[in-house]
């Protein structure tokens, strides 16, 4: 009787008023436990052993003692904290105004800006960083050269080889990720609140600060948590900008442990360093879940006359566009010019008439000789399969977390976030060994499917942060209305919830697809000759010093992405128009 009334331990776990939902959520939890929990457990065990994965041996804390009794570790952790905090600040300073401008206002050229935001990610980070070196290097940077000529300075005016420099470059590169995560929340916002503010005489800026930002706080918090964890894990900018000046961050320690110049990787020590990320991730997840539980405060899409409209910027239209172009010139135009210039040269050199006389299309012709066609086929599979599976799982998880009262929904959400709190290289190592050990049962090792698994696990955190922030804004009354009309839960999900969150899901689909294309750490760790992808080819080219070839590949991909993303964007808009018309 107690169980029926929903009381008691079992009653608290299983919501008997919605047994189907609880069973579904339980099934999802089991799937997530298998997908996420097993590789993470593998990594944790690795950190508690001194030997190599597969060697066994007794459990020990020696890796943790080595890692955390060294005072140098705490200096590195402070660097990491400053770098991550600086990165998130820079990202939000650009991303929040930009998402508001693109999603809520009538700023011109929005479609073009959207596509450019997407393609920026396709420019390899190391080439993007070369652009910054050409601009801000103390010795050869154009800004410092000009400053010396104009002001007669003896010392460089600016240098990028410090933590603020690293945070700025990384922060700018994270803007598209933050943009796509926030876009969904801003796109679906009911303009009634903004209109009410305007009619009360509140300015657009005040409305943005007092209405838009508070309403989208869960989305912004989700982005902050996600980006903070990403900033802790990223390696390229710390390696290219931090390492030359001996600025080490947590990812540098993990990289050195897993890629020593000689000898064997020390995955145990890397796992011990990574555990601080796990701890940070769990702490953030706890506060994030608490914030999300206050979901009703952030509901903006209700059953009454919801119709998002654009805000007229009037005379502010052009300064707004200038702000966006300023950002795009740093993120897309300048790196793309460097990319294009480098792709045409036999070797990397500064612009000059002599260099101009050597340009040719040779690098574009030789790419296929070196790489063949397999990397392109595998990458196409990856770019379609990973976002599809990730977003499908994310929608289902977010629905349980945000839309149901299942008692363990917080655990489900935390579990979805956990992979992001693990160094991806360790996740891939764990998955690789599982793949080998069970290849008789699941013959995925060495195939593209194991990379699809790894990427999906890695980006469930991204997917669910986005779908959470969208779903939290959809009022329950819409689903309740559907249920009252006799529709089943899957039907309500498919016909009411999904169409409302479709735009956000589409944005994230595109973005996860791009992330999957670019990801190199896991792809390299799980790499065999059958599952080679473009990012591993780019890495191999770069590692061999074939910079012009990497640039040529980058140019091809950027142009390809402009066509594909532009096409998808137009196609999706048409579908939405037709759907709303009917």
């Amino acid at each position, binding site marked *: 009787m107690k169980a029926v009334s929903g009381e008691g331990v079992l009653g608290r776990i299983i919501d008997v008023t919605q047994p189907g939902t609880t069973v579904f959520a339980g099934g999802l939890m089991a799937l997530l436990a298998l997908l996420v929990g097993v590789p993470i457990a593998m990594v944790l065990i690795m950190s508690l052993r001194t*030997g*190599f*994965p*597969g*060697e*066994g041996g007794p459990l020990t804390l020696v890796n943790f003692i080595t890692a955390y009794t*060294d005072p140098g*570790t705490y*200096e*590195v952790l402070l660097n990491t904290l400053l770098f991550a905090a600086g990165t998130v600040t820079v990202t939000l300073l650009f991303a929040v105004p930009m998402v508001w401008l693109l999603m809520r206002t009538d700023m011109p050229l929005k479609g073009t800006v959207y596509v450019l935001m997407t393609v920026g990610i396709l420019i390899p980070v190391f080439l993007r960083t*070369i652009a910054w*070196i*050409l601009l801000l*290097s*103390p*010795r*050869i940077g154009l800004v410092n050269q000009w400053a010396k000529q104009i002001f007669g300075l003896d010392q460089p005016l600016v240098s990028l080889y410090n933590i603020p420099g690293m945070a700025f470059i990384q922060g700018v590169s994270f803007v598209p990720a933050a943009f796509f995560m926030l876009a969904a929340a801003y796109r679906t916002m009911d303009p009634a609140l903004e209109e009410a503010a305007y009619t009360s005489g509140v300015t657009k800026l005040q409305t943005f600060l007092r209405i838009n930002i508070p309403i989208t706080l869960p989305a912004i918090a989700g982005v902050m948590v996600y980006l903070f964890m990403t900033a802790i894990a990223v390696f390229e900018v710390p*390696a*290219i900008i931090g*390492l*030359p000046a*001996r600025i*080490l961050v947590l990812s540098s320690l993990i990289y*050195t442990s*897993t*890629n*020593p*110049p*000689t*000898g*064997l*990787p020390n995955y145990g020590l890397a796992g011990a360093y990574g555990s601080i990320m796990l701890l940070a991730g769990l702490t953030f997840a706890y506060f994030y879940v608490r914030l999300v539980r206050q979901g009703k405060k952030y509901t903006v899409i209700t059953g009454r006359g919801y119709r998002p409209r654009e805000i007229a910027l009037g005379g502010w239209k052009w300064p707004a566009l200038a702000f966006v172009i300023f950002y795009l010139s740093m993120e897309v135009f300048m790196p793309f010019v460097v990319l294009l210039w480098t792709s045409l040269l*036999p*070797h*990397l*050199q*500064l612009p000059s008439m002599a260099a101009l006389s*050597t340009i040719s299309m040779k690098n574009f012709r030789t790419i296929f*000789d*070196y790489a*063949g066609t397999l990397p392109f086929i595998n990458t196409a599979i990856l770019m379609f399969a990973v976002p599809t599976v990730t977003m499908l799982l994310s929608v289902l998880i977010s629905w349980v977390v945000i839309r149901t009262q299942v008692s363990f929904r917080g655990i489900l959400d935390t579990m979805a976030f956990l992979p992001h709190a693990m160094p991806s290289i360790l996740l891939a190592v764990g998955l*690789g*060994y599982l793949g*080998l*050990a069970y290849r008789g049962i699941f013959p995925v090792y*060495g195939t593209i499917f194991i990379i699809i698994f790894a990427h999906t696990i890695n980006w469930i955190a991204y997917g669910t942060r986005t779908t959470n922030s969208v779903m939290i804004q959809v009022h329950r009354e819409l689903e309740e209305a559907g249920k009252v009309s006799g529709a089943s839960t899957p039907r309500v999900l498919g016909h009411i919830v999904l169409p409302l969150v479709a735009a956000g899901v589409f944005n994230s689909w595109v973005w996860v697809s791009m992330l999957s294309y670019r990801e190199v750490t896991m792809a*390299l*760790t799980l790499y*065999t*000759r059958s599952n*080679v992808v473009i990012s591993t080819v780019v*890495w*191999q080219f*770069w*590692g*061999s*010093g*074939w*910079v*012009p070839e990497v640039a040529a590949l980058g140019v091809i991909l950027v142009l390809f992405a402009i066509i594909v993303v532009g096409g998808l964007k137009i196609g999706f808009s048409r579908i939405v128009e037709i759907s709303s018309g009917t």
Partner: protein
Amino acid sequence: MKRLRLLVAGLVVALLAIAGMAQDGLAAPVDELIASAKKEGAIEFYTSSTLTPEGAQKLGEAFNKKYGLNIKLNYNPGDSYTRDVGKVVGLAASGVAPEWDVMVVHDAGHATLWLRKAHKPFDYAKLGVDPKAIQYDNGTVILANQFALPAYNSKILPPQDVPKKWEDLLDPKWKGGKLGMSTATHHLARLATAWGEKKATEYVKALAKQAPMLGTLATITTRLQLGEVLLAVTLNDSFVHRAKVTGAPIVFAEGVEPVISPAYNAGVLKGARHPNAGHLLAAFLTTSEAQEIWEKYNSQTSALVPGTTAYKYAQGKKVLYMNQDQAEMVDRLTREYGKLLGFEK
């Protein structure tokens, strides 16, 4: 006189017989190996991505032509030797067969495999391989040598500033980020095989005080091309050769000695699925046919094979080759120097 003639004729016959037997002795192991390799039918071959699929195909064709085989050579390009050596060790520890039969990595990588007993040894001398090229207790054969030296941008660095000896890099004029040091700290650790640990370590400590800009070999080369660093403490000949091919003004500071020479070795892995074909291929890689292809695609040859580019380059120079007895010391110093220079905390 007649007796003398008979004696000479007898000796000639005896010598010919001995030579014939020696030939038979050499031919027999090769023939046996060829027959066994034929049954295996394939080889999983791991080596650097610079060989390219085309280079691997040419190598496979030449291998089959030489031994009258039709073996499929599956090329597995690698990019991180330490990670992939780690993979082999991990698989061996789990009792899982390695993914590759033959692995071509630098001597330090094979040292790790040797210490873990992950090679399948073979008497390569019986196949006619130069005993000097056989390393790690018959576990590997040297097929190519790299050379590493300080390198500079010839368009930027004035000739009078080009270092003539290793100690020139310690001149105060190079302080403050004008030098570039790559993650290949094993180059400096190898100096200890000639200088002794104490002198080499003092040298690296002094070098660290110059505060060189740190990075990978690729990023240091890029910074050298851009003029951001003026001198790379060490660069290997793959990058210098590549610069030459593309017209980039990156050259070695020739004359600096000793010249560091990491060796590329080919070894068959324990538990390999095609060990016989693997051993045959490892031996083949030291032949002139293979060396020609290797040079064309990887721009490297063996300093132990007369007539090759590496052989000619090494003549008259003091070159440091690491042997298996020095491997542990080089490994230890590599890590120590990484810390001294700031790559690790």
